[in-house]
């Protein structure tokens, strides 16, 4: 990610959220855009960084129609699990554009310091 980019800040925020989350807890990463560089690319970067310490859960909202997250874009390949993230297009639910990814922090050790109880 280019230094100082918005995606760089998003990665840092998500990384910190994963660090602070207790094992077994969940983190929702959500944006108000469907720009892949702010969504799938960010999630993919954290999945690669955290390895087996987190996993993606299916992101679903009752009554909300969405599309699966991208697994490739502009020549980049993303982790297959990104298909379980959720893209919301404006015309599907009469909303703005949104993106939702649901992480679960696995008990197999934190990324950095343990989150306080």
């Amino acid at each position, binding site marked *: 990610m280019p230094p100082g980019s918005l995606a760089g800040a998003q990665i840092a925020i998500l990384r910190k959220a994963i660090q602070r989350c207790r094992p077994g807890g969940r983190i929702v990463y959500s944006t108000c855009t*469907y*720009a892949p560089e702010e969504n*799938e690319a960010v999630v993919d970067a954290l999945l690669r960084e955290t390895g087996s310490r987190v996993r993606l859960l299916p992101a679903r909202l009752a009554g909300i129609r969405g*599309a699966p997250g991208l697994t490739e*874009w502009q020549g980049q390949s993303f982790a297959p699990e990104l298909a379980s993230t959720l893209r919301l*297009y404006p*015309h599907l639910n009469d909303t703005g554009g949104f993106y939702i990814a649901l992480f679960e922090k696995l008990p197999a050790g934190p990324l950095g310091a343990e989150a306080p109880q």
Partner: protein
Amino acid sequence: MSGRADLRVGVADLLPIVDARLYLGLFEERFGIPAATFAEYSFFKANAQAIWIVRRDLRLPARPVPYAVGMPFYYYRMIHPRPTTPDGAALGTPRHPPRHRARRRADRPLRRLPGSAAAGGPGSGLQPRLLADALPRPAPGVGLATTDDADRPIFRAMTPKFWRLRLDQLIGGPDDTAEMEE
């Protein structure tokens, strides 16, 4: 007062359709949105700044059936008393309403009509008075006015452009209840 008949029309009757391929390619390249996402939609040129993406089977809703005779008016300007959110929800918030003036007939008493209580309820900046003529004929709608307007010989009326109706089409002849200017 000009207007059009109360018809359910498609968006294609109102706006020019544009070739969607340019935009579909942009969406897919920039955002990864596949073209199939818009398979049931058409693209319309709304204005110089906007493209509307609308379902092909969309039909614009019919306007409410008028239930009272009268002159629609609704103060949308941000002057005292100001329309409130409940007022806007009840009567709409026209962005560029036309302006009408109606001269009251002295022998036509003002009446409160059904629904006025809700439209001018708590929080409303307007008096809950629906001014209507006493003719048993359909009307383009009803509106709210302040107490000050009740005694004026001329009402200033504003109505959403989309709801403008030709009074003589509704009442079957030249309107003899009001003089209207735009």
